[in-house]
């Protein structure tokens, strides 16, 4: 893949916590519109890598390039660069993290008003559009506590999308959900992938990875162990560790 068409590049990104290397020199190029699924055992650095992309964790070393803008993370990152980066990269968490004291609509509209400077009307209109897209327009005036986990996660996706990101990061978006609620979230993500959104999805949902992702990455010990088209990696893993890991999750 050539540099020009990649919307996101990581170069030798490294993050150490108290002497333990959580991400150990990861390089990665993601093309515009590509859907990348990331799997790997617990503690292999999947979340940390994802969080390095939007600088929720500031890497110790390495470069992050989003749509042509380089960020060298070994120096201090300016507030302006940080804002620019976060405008372009949306994130969805395992635990939804909706603001509990705001209605669903306010959750989605407030960031638009504050980050993009949209008026309240404009923001609300966009929020309703997105709520419709995730099938929750009837929940606009409800508080998060009155929504199921699956509904909360769909609202969280709408909240991130409302800022018109170019890349969406998902950190185990269905792991906190009962399987049937997870399905409604996965359906929304599948739809999003169909619209051409660039997505990086850390997940244990092998079926989703196999059917939606363009590429599957297997991580271990803070590194990318192997990667390739999902079917190929799943059917013919090159590493013994991948085989062990895959059989472990398939048995669940």
């Amino acid at each position, binding site marked *: 893949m050539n540099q020009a068409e990649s919307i996101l590049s990581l170069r030798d990104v490294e993050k150490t916590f108290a002497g333990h290397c959580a991400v150990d020199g990861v390089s990665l190029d993601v093309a515009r519109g590509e859907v990348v699924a990331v799997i790997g055992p617990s503690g292999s650095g999947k979340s940390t890598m994802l969080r390095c992309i939007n600088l*929720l964790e500031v890497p110790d070393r390495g470069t992050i390039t989003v749509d042509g803008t380089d960020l060298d993370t070994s120096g201090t990152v300016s507030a302006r660069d940080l804002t620019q980066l976060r405008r372009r990269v949306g*994130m969805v*968490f395992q635990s939804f993290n909706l*603001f509990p004291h705001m209605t669903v609509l306010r959750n989605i509209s407030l960031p638009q008003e504050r980050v993009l400077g949209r008026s309240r009307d404009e923001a609300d209109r966009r929020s309703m559009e997105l709520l419709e897209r995730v099938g929750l327009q009837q929940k606009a005036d409800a508080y*998060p506590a009155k929504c199921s986990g699956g509904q909360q996660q769909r609202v969280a996706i709408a909240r991130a999308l409302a800022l018109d990101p170019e890349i969406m990061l998902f950190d185990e978006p269905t792991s906190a959900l009962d399987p049937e609620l997870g399905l409604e979230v996965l359906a929304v993500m599948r739809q999003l992938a169909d619209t051409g959104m660039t997505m990086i999805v850390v997940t244990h949902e092998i079926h989703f990875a196999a059917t939606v992702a363009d590429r599957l990455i297997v991580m271990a010990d803070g590194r990318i162990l192997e990667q390739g088209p999902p079917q190929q990696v799943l059917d013919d893993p090159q590493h013994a560790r991948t085989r062990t890991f895959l059989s472990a999750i398939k048995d669940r």
Partner: protein
Amino acid sequence: MDVLPIIVAAIPVTLGVTAASFAIGAVLGLALVAGRRSRWTVVRGLSRSVVEVLRGIPPIVLLFIIFFGIGSGALRMEPFQAAVIGLGLVSAAHLSEVYRGSLLAVPKGQFEAADALGLSRSTTSARVIAPQAFRVAMPGMVTWAISLLKDSALVSTIGVAEIMSVTNQHARSSGDGLMPFILAAAVYIAIGTPLAIWSRWLEKRFARIRKAA
């Protein structure tokens, strides 16, 4: 029983000292907790020392330092001013601890979500974190207001004419040592009880919200 109207007439002074010290403490407490969460080590250390010093001094000693020490020197101070400054500082230290605890109760994911959305530090504090922390802090704040109401009796020692002061004066001049103080106690309870009920109600409501979330 002719002392009762005298005590009742002093209620506004007691309430004034309590409310003014509480207001000062509520605002200064915010500054202290902001200092304790600052990204600069020096500011953190300084704020922490201020809190510890203020909490380490018995309030009556602090009142005497301010009124007889500072107040008799360069800065002339009315007893009421000195009282409000002294109890205000004590409140600031205490309320900053209440705030700090309530901030720790806001899940880390809330800060992260705000960061990931690109909200500024001030928007995050004002619109996301403070409203959630405030709900947690409310019962502790009301509890402190009740303590402060009672502790305001201390300022009779520097000559503020609040409930305790006028009661004491009456007791001395009338020679009745028991009844005036019992009446004063009843008045404190009468003012404090609604606050206590409110605090318990808030606490219950908070527990319910936490369960629902």
